[in-house]
């Protein structure tokens, strides 16, 4: 089973809100100096999903990441977790792409890799949270897509996916190759086995540029973008704190319940 996992490096979500700065004019996030980016949390789960499939069905995991050359760290971590190969897609032309542009770049890289049975993405990125790249990528590749997976199993030539819905889950099947976006319910990403940690460290991660994957400049041109950011702002967070009083704890609890009931 050949699995391709698309991962993204994002601004560390653990930085305190005070450090989070944006440039409203350029409509961009200003990364604080010296904060090393981390792998997007959902992508980590996608990787875990891939590793579980590999544990059961053997095969090969290839990891792709569009971003700066620093993304090699993320790929190395993926290799430590169980991936076999990985490529960084980095080119000035890839910067500030929208979901369509990113999906296009990934599709070109996937076509270059060639044979695959399954493409896995995180349900959405931890930074912008658009959740579109997976679906668009499937569209470009012309393969079925199942989103929000919490469990993935191989079933003959099909892939069987447990998909989260608002009041439970549904089980879907699709022929391979397919694309599945993974939700956090799949489970905690594994700690890399010790030996793989050292192997990954030594590994050289190739960087593919636009010309390496045959990406056409016109497809990535700003003017051709399908989406436009019209404004960017940091949400105003207001917190009001009210201590619910009561003579006894049970009375306080009753007061809290009636307060909550009034809010709805």
């Amino acid at each position, binding site marked *: 089973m050949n699995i391709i996992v698309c991962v993204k490096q994002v601004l560390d979500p653990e930085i305190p809100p005070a450090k989070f700065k944006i440039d409203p004019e350029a409509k961009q996030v200003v990364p604080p100096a010296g904060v*090393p980016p981390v792998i997007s949390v959902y992508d980590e789960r996608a990787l875990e999903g891939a590793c579980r499939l590999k544990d059961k069905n053997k095969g090969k995991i290839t990891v792709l990441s569009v971003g700066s050359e620093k993304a090699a760290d993320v790929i190395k971590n993926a290799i430590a977790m169980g991936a076999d190969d990985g490529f960084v897609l980095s080119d000035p032309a890839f910067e500030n792409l929208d979901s369509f542009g990113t999906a296009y770049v990934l599709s070109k890289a996937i076509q270059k890799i060639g044979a695959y049975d399954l493409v896995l993405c995180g349900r959405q990125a931890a930074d912008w949270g658009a959740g579109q790249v997976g679906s668009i990528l499937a569209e470009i590749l012309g393969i079925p897509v199942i989103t929000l997976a919490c469990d993935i199993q191989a079933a003959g030539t099909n892939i069987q996916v447990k998909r989260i819905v608002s009041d439970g889950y549904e089980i879907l099947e699709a022929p391979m190759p397919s694309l599945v976006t993974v939700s956090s319910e799949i489970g905690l990403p594994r700690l890399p086995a010790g030996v793989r940690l*050292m192997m990954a460290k030594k590994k050289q991660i190739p960087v593919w540029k636009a010309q390496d994957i045959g990406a056409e400049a016109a497809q990535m041109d700003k003017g051709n973008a399908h989406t436009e950011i019209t404004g960017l702002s940091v949400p105003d967070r207001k917190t009001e704190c009210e201590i619910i009083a009561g003579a006894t704890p049970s009375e306080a609890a009753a007061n809290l319940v009636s307060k909550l009931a009034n809010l709805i």
Partner: protein
Amino acid sequence: MSPVSATYFGISGYVIFWVMFIIAISLFAQRAYFLFRIMCLGKQESRFGNIGQRIMNMFVEVIPQRCTLKSVTGKDLAGLGHAFMFWGFSFFLISYIVFIGFAEGLGLYPYIMGGTFEEVYFSILDFAGLFVIIAIVWAAIRRFIVRPERLEMSVEAGVIMLMVFGLMALHFIIESFDFAALGETSGLPPISKAIAGYLAGTGIPKDTMFAISHGAWWLHYALILGFAIYIPRSKHLHVLAAAFNVFFRPIGPKVVIEPIPMEALEALENGDESVSLGASKIQDFKWKDMLDFYSCAVCGRCHVNCPAHISGKSLSPKEVIHDLKEHLMEVGPGLLAAKARASADVEAPAEGQSKSMIGDVVDEEKIWACTTCGACQEVCPVGIEHIRKIIQMRQYLMLVENKMPESAQLMLRNMQTRGNPWAGAQSLRLRGDWTNDMGLKILGECEENPSTLLWVGCTGALIDRNVLAILSLANVLKAAGVDFCVLGEAEACCGDPARRAGYEFQFQLSAEENIETLKNYNIKEVITSCPHCFNALKNEYPAYGAEFKVVHYTEVIADLIKQGKLKLTNNVDSLIAYHDPCYLSRYNEIYEEPRQIIQNMPKARFKEMERSKLNTFCCGGGGGHMWIEEQHGTTKINHVRMDEVIGTGVDTVVTSCPYCLQMLEEGIEQKGVKDSLKAKDLIEVVETAMKQS
């Protein structure tokens, strides 16, 4: 007449003597060789360097009995008894060689006996025998009637005691009946002759007396030989193994964790499945570990000093060592046979491995309960290295099985993604809110880099409470005119929690990365705040190429006070107890400096805790346990310690470790003594004492 020169049933005494001797020695040698071969099942390890120092250790530890006397307290005087038995028995051992071997066996009787030498030596033996008998009776009362927690009722112990008692009693019987028969009832040796005096008055015929003396002599000789046969087959094997174990104990750092060699890794990458990481089978341990097993006398000192055991966890270092020894003796012969077949190129599965070492012999719960505080090793009279066995088993679980407590996994993942074991971005190290006004020199950002680095440590950099202590440290160092810099976000975790948790490669990666950073900035000296960083940087980084000097801040501050560069002028006016961090006091023997600092504080009164210095008690945070959850349903280790602190009646407990500080504060909170007791880092008190008000 010598008993050996007589003839018994037509057979010369000499023949009987030497036949007995050869049989006993053969049985002894057979067992010794067997044990040696079992020991060699362990992996290679070099413990032969520093021979001079090693011989010295033996002289210092074994002959003056420092090994057992060091743990003698008012509550546990057993070490004293052991020392008397050891010394007493040593005199007898020499007498066996000189008087029984040379004089009797070789017939050198006329040259050795009958002079002042014999008189004096037998007088010494008289007293030695008396002391040994007193010690044996005391030991028997202790073990079988008083029954202290650390000892178990054991048949073996009883047999050994009877044997030793028998040897001593026979000595007096031989001597006193002989003297009585000869009519010598006064002079030296005094005790034997005094008894002879009594015997002479009983009217036992002279011939009977000689016969009793001779019979006792042969019985005595047989018992000595029996002892030689029995010892290597019993728990008293420690008599033979312990001295070697002391000889081969680590020189330098007390806990040695061997780096996993790169060759092993390469072999693994190439699919060689015979390579093992950590220890999952008994033969995965090193030969010194096997010698450790032989040396254990099951005295239980480790058992009663282990914080995990004291707080109700299932771990007992004594049981771990004992169970591993039993396991080794059980599967060892099968392994030897398998080894022999393998060298004869016959494929066969290893025999006797039906039990799995991890799980059946030592369960995972025990393996994870250890805080690596080192209390067990410190009190062990025979130099057993418990901790590295635990860590080797953790290595296997971590590196091969990927099995670990979830809390450990979270900590290690943080270390991988963010370079520190805590949650929180690495970028917060020495950044922003709290160092802005301090004008700290950050490496790479200041014009001239000082060659002294203040190594902040993850906990000091990221945890609010511990940040305060680092601020105090920075303030004090600046006030004393120390030119230093900090690394800021380029400082990654030292790797200690990963190494103690068995995740060896993460430690290796962290060490290599940090050493490279420090080399690039040409750092010559590192001042650390956290004793765990201190231990890793000082004792473990050199194996990865570190060449800088590492000091703990307590050493620096004590030195600054001595030089007069730091003056403590403000009244502290507190009753202070100092909680020694294990990794500072026990691991690195830095315990005088903090006390000197406290003594220099005006109006500070100091109260020593009962468990202090080398025998300090763990706060519960070592060995990765700042993150790894404690076993459910057991007392928290820091609460045990807090009860001890409260018992001293102090108003301030100071320490010099960020983990200890957190643990003590949590203890104060939980015990509800916030109003009467404060926990502080020593450096915070130094800062208060230093400030000009």
